[in-house]
């Protein structure tokens, strides 16, 4: 059974690697989110294959996938659904929104108005949606992968700390290495044209998406169950509490990590250990995940920001002191 699970993780990674170049860490974070049922916020400039990556994983595990492009005029009902009057029988019927899926890609979440963000984040937390007088449970597994562009600030609504806290992980995507970027170009050169109905369009990486999944929803549930069996020692719990508490005491930090940060760390570490083929977590899991689990949950003091102190440097200092 253990071998099958390991193979599944490898198969998913292999499938992603066929379409997306590099991005191993992001793939790992996506799998962690999938295995723990936590939500993931991807922060990065456009053009880093975020959408492609999410769709590839969705196809690889045979999950229902929806993508919503968040805009300023988006309404909560555009995501959650609404009641529609059926003129044939003069009765209201419920139209379920795109949130009723397994994997929802909320593209550029910070472009939507706060009421839309709030509606989505409430659904993320409660895993159910109320439309009219009826409450509908969201499918299981349900995972939101949101993206936001850290550079453009005009016309955006920054997610407040309380809502950011609902994302188990916030991963900051970086540009690919030079070799990887060359590989991207090489692959795109080999794509060619796709002829349809007498015409032709250039093929994109999305055309390479293999529809046949390597794992089913049932396999995913099995992996989720296996993650819950990963052992978390008392010592690891002490390390986690120590690091989270240090974020609250650091002179450059105004608001430190919440207890939810510790819970997220434990869950994410379990999934990481599982992906790395261990049935127990080790301090390396904590250190590898600290930035993604903690950084979006802390707010630096104004004085620290004015001095040019970055969240990453403060976190490094905390981890170094805690070691």
């Amino acid at each position, binding site marked *: 059974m253990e071998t099958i699970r390991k193979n599944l993780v490898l198969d998913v990674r292999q499938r992603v690697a066929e379409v997306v170049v590099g991005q191993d860490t992001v793939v790992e974070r996506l799998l962690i989110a999938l295995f723990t049922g936590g939500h993931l916020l991807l922060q990065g400039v456009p053009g880093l294959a975020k959408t492609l990556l999410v769709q590839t994983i969705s196809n690889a595990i045979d999950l229902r996938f929806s993508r919503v492009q968040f805009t300023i005029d988006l309404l909560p009902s555009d995501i959650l659904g609404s009641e529609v009057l059926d003129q044939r029988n003069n009765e209201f019927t419920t139209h379920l929104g795109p949130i009723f899926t397994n994997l929802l890609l909320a593209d550029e979440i910070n472009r939507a108005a706060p009421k839309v963000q709030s509606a989505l984040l409430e659904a993320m937390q409660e895993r159910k949606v109320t439309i009219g007088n009826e409450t509908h449970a969201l499918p299981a597994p349900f995972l939101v992968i949101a993206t936001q562009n850290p550079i453009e600030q005009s016309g955006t609504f920054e997610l407040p700390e309380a809502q950011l806290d609902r994302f188990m992980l916030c991963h900051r995507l970086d540009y690919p290495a030079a070799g990887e970027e060359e590989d991207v170009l090489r692959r795109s050169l080999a794509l060619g044209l796709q002829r349809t109905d007498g015409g032709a369009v250039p093929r994109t990486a999305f055309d390479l998406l293999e529809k046949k999944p390597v794992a089913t929803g049932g396999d995913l549930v099995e992996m989720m169950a296996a993650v819950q069996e990963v052992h978390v*020692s008392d010592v690891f719990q*002490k390390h986690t509490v120590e690091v989270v508490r240090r974020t609250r005491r650091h002179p450059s930090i105004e608001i430190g990590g919440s207890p939810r940060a510790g819970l997220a760390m434990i869950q994410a570490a379990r999934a990481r250990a599982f992906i790395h083929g261990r049935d127990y977590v080790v301090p*390396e899991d904590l*250190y590898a995940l600290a930035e993604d689990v903690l950084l979006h949950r802390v707010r630096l003091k104004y004085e620290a920001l004015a001095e040019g102190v970055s969240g990453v440097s403060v976190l490094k200092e905390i981890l170094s002191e*805690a*070691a």
Partner: protein
Amino acid sequence: MNRRLIKLTLIASALGGLAKPTGAPPDPFPIGMEGSLIVVLPGEPLKAAPVGDKSTIILRIQDMFPHGSDHRYDLRYFGFVPGEYDLGKFLRHADGTAPTNLPPIPVRIRGMLPANHDGMLIEEETGNFSLPGSYTAWLIGTGIVWGLAAWPLFLLGRKKKTSLRQAEAEPGPDLAEQLRPLIEQAANGTLDTYGRARLERMIFSHWREQLGLPEDGDMAELHHQLKAHAEAGPLLHGLEDWLHRPPGTSTVDIPTLLEPYRHPTE
């Protein structure tokens, strides 16, 4: 009943006030301060005379009310030159002509200087206190005294800082000394969870120090490097097995693993 009585009293006092212009002039007002006067004057409504460069008094009509066939005026005035004035001379008909049928409306403006003042500026009296020597010399002297007084304070602050630095430089037992009791307890099997967590963190710090790895480096990467190190690796792997594996699955012999650290050769 009482209200009617108060009304009558007020009217009587107002009428009493109206008699004033024909009687004694009101109390004098100082130059530049605005005085007021309520008078009842006969005839058509009047207006204040225009003010010129040489005007010794400025008059304005704040309010005017019909009073039977006459008019009641609320006059406001202020003067520039002390003396007695008849405000009637500063009133005009609507066509700009001076009225001739007005009773005298006397007012007095008093000056703020003494009556016998000859118009010369008054010299300010100087105080009795005077410094011996020049002002510059005093300034320089005060600066030197201030500097001398501040010097001990500066030295005091410096001394405190130095002692703080010394205290930082002498934190007591070093990492190896702090590790020793933890290692002893671990070898004896008496180390609690908190101590185990400390031991793991301190051994990591110890090796990071030993190998000169950067303190601000990526911690996960540093862990990875240390675990791959020939000397530190087995210890860290052993510790991980002991501290993090599910209970009963670790095969590490802790006393043997920690033996080199209990009796260091150096």
